[in-house]
């Protein structure tokens, strides 16, 4: 099904993203629908965001402490950050804004930090390609041929809160630093979730996310620069509940009219992930050049998942688990005021999900599957790739201690997966392959003064879409999106409207002393 401006897709594994602003590469995203995600979790400061967030061989002096707490040891001094960030999805499809405050401090060999963030996320809406508005359905008294009695959507935005804390110690004699951090998120709004329960009247989200990580940084100073080894162990726990209010159309034999009947589906989204990452950087013989490698492993379990609905395709999220890996190589050059970096990452992922019979189910050949027996098994194999390339150049303003910096970058994310599905009820097997690319140009501008750094960084992600308005009657099933981990079975095509997600971040950084 191809429409102008629409992208027909198949839902396979919905998607996996992590409700952690410090995720970067330690938590490997799994995405099975080319659905646009808001930059909700990009709230912490970064010096490389405008350079496509290259990170393997190019340290991010501001952003790294939020990823690997041990790297805070590199900070020359204590700093205060404020990073107002806004993002928007094109075609009036959603957006949000965040105001984080962060403090990173060093005292002798100890270092630590904290951050607090308040965030407001707008309700996600179907893309309004033709300039139309969103019509909220008000309650209406019964008696009409179609009696609308279930309250309509609310346009009210919802807020999230983030708290980050970190502490670490540097063993100077060994050039070894260790640190630990915790990020706790109170979640009431996940961008895009509204659109994944098509036909719903309202969604109440509640939940939290916890990200614990322990990191180490070992450096070996050398003439051309230090070799660096980083190790991170991360545990991410995501738990949200969606109370989804639907208005089902039913026939009322009493009044002999169609009426709406309220139905609240409670969907649980639970994911636990353990991950580990090793990263190694060395300087090359040519002055300024460095090369780095990284290797990451994630194991995620998702005992519960919401049943989302997009279009007429149902994707009940089934229990399952995933193993995700990435192997990356990066090279960078820092020579004077110029910086260049490129990362290439390959992400093989294996996911296995299943659905269990909740009651005896008759199979096509007449057998009966007892409760608890698998009715459906899905095996997903991903071969994703990520390319990041970025350049930056600082320009000293002559005669002052001030500088202007310019940054440009490009991220290419290729997602490719294969699904093999076994249906133990219909006694069928089928396979499906799908791939697409999302690309993200980035840019940045910085003003550095002795007493203050001001950075503006932006990015726009293209190549993904969002569910658009559909005018089906009833009988649709919900399909799901998750912000924890969503691995679900594909069962049909779905149309998304291409949208762009644009993020703007202004970062203020002040040395405390």
């Amino acid at each position: 099904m191809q429409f102008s401006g629409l992208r027909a897709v198949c839902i396979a594994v919905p998607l996996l993203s992590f409700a952690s602003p410090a995720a970067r590469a330690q938590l490997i995203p799994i995405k099975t629908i080319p659905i646009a995600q808001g930059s909700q979790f990009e709230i912490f400061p970064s010096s490389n965001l405008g350079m496509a967030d290259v990170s393997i061989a190019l340290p991010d002096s501001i952003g790294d402490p939020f990823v690997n707490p041990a790297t805070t040891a590199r900070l020359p001094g204590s700093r205060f950050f404020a990073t107002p960030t806004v993002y928007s999805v094109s075609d009036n499809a959603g957006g949000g804004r965040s105001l984080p405050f962060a403090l990173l401090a060093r005292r002798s060999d100890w270092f630590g930090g904290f951050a607090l963030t308040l965030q407001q996320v707008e309700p996600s809406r179907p893309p309004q390609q033709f300039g139309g508005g969103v019509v909220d359905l008000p309650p209406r008294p019964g008696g009409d041929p179609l009696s609308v009695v279930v309250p309509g959507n609310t346009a009210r935005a919802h807020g999230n809160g983030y708290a980050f804390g970190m502490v670490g110690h540097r063993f100077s004699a060994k050039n070894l630093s260790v640190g630990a951090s915790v990020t706790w998120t109170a979640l009431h709004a996940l961008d895009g979730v509204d659109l994944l329960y098509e036909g719903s009247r309202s969604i109440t989200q509640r939940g939290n996310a916890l990200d614990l990580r322990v990191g180490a940084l070992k450096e070996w100073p050398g003439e051309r620069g230090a070799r660096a080894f980083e190790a991170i162990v991360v545990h991410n726990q995501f738990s949200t509940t969606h109370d989804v209010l639907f208005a089902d159309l039913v026939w009322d034999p009493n009044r002999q009219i169609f009426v709406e009947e309220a139905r609240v589906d409670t969907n649980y989204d639970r994911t636990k992930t353990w991950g580990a990452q090793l990263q190694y950087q060395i300087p090359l013989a040519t002055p300024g050049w460095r090369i780095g490698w990284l290797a990451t492993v994630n194991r995620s379990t998702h005992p519960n998942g919401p049943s989302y609905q997009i279009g007429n395709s149902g994707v009940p999220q089934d229990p399952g688990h995933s193993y995700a890996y990435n192997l990356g190589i990066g090279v960078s050059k820092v020579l004077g005021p110029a910086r260049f970096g490129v990362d290439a990452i390959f992400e093989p992922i294996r996911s296995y999900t299943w659905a269990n019979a909740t009651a005896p189910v008759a199979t096509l050949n007449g057998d009966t599957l007892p409760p608890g027996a698998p009715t459906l098994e899905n095996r997903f194999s991903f071969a994703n790739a990520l390319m990041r390339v970025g350049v930056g150049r600082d320009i000293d303003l002559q005669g002052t201690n001030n500088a202007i910096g310019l940054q440009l970058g490009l991220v290419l994310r290729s997602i490719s997966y294969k699904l093999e599905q076994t249906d133990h009820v219909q006694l069928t097997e089928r396979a499906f392959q799908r791939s697409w690319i999302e690309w993200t140009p980035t840019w940045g501008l910085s003003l550095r003064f002795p007493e203050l750094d001001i950075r503006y960084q932006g990015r726009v992600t293209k190549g993904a879409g969002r569910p658009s308005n559909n005018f089906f009657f009833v009988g649709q099933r919900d399909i799901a999106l998750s912000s924890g981990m969503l691995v679900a079975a594909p069962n049909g095509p779905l149309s998304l409207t291409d949208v762009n997600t644009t993020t703007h971040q202004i970062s203020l950084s002040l040395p405390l002393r």
Partner: protein
Amino acid sequence: MTVWVRPLCLAALVVTAAACDEQTPTGELPETLDVQLRRNIGQYGVVPIAAMARQDPALVTLGQALMFDKVLSGNRDISCGTCHDPTLHLTDGLPLPVGTGGTGSGAARTLGPGRSFVPRNAPSLVNSAIGLFYVFWDGRLNQFGPQGPLQLPDVVLPFDLPNVLAAQAFLPILNRREMRGEPGDVDVFGNPNELAQFADTQAAEIWQAVTRRLFATPGYPELFRAAFPYLPSSSFTFREAAIAIAAFQMDALMRTNSPFDRYLRRDDNALSVEAKRGGVLFFGEARCSSCHNGPLLGGQQFANTGVPQLGPGVGAAAPLDLGRGGLVNNEFYQFAFRVPPLRNVELTAPYFHNGSFPTLESVVAHYNDVSRSLRSFDPATLPAALRDSYHGEQATIDSVIQHLDSRLREPLRLTEAQQRDLVAFLKALTDPAARDLSGIIPASVPSGLSIR
């Protein structure tokens, strides 16, 4: 430096090339049965049925008594429940009903001397309260009639009836074949049948006479006063009896929790795989839903489905039955009959307006090639008492085919497996609670007459 940069650039190129390999989907995943079925269902306005509100118990008790009391019939030998027998899912199991004067019950019921079959099949009353727009096979009673809602061209019904069910309850007692009897009849006690003495045009007098009978029967005055405590005894008419019968139908005869209904309420496991395949056909290739659509899966249209002509016939066209085409200003609908709602259809054999097809399998086979089915209809499949009333003349068959609904003129060409799937879907329309309705039969009725 060169040592590292070259392989890195090469790796980058490889990754980029791999990433750029396919930007558009490599293929669409085949839709599952559920996706196909739900999409197809969504195109036809089929929605779940909400619960029927409980009716006033006193009203229901009165309606139950009236439904099964033969005192309403001229000869005191037949009740509503005779042809709408709960043990037969509120039908009689016969192609054409046997009205007053008959003996026996259910499929064993036989015509009395000098009597003839009621010309059209007795439809099940299960879900009769679901909200039918048209009542009777020709839809002559409906909510959109030219005479106004709930009115008939030849009978003046009370103007303030609350629903079509109450209006319908006025009519069988007027019908000589069904309940009223013929002039000269005597009732089961040998007394003259006073209801049969009225002319066919004296509907109001007949209803008054039935009401007099009821109030002369010990027990009924109390039941009426309990059901209508706000009415003075002197003002009771047959209207109150009809309202009570309708209340009983609304309260006791709704069965809408079939596997298909549960599927509509989002239980994917409610239907078997065969039923889902059949459902995809029903709402798709087999085109059943072009007529059987909406929340009731039918009941809103009329169609000439090429059913063999059978029975004594109706009106001026007798011994043929033109169906809705026999009504004034409806000549377009030659041989067309109401498309029935299909919930619990498995339980209401035989099928069509004259019961000419005994099983769902035979119905589906008929629809697979209507013209051929009609031309090759074998009257030996009918009960012996009806075989002689089959009108298989070539001219009759040609006339029926000439007016065949346009949706049925081309064979469907369904395979036998597809036909089995369709039957499986139709059987999934059965509410398990409709399989045994014997619980709604009262132990006794105020008249003391036998119930069966």
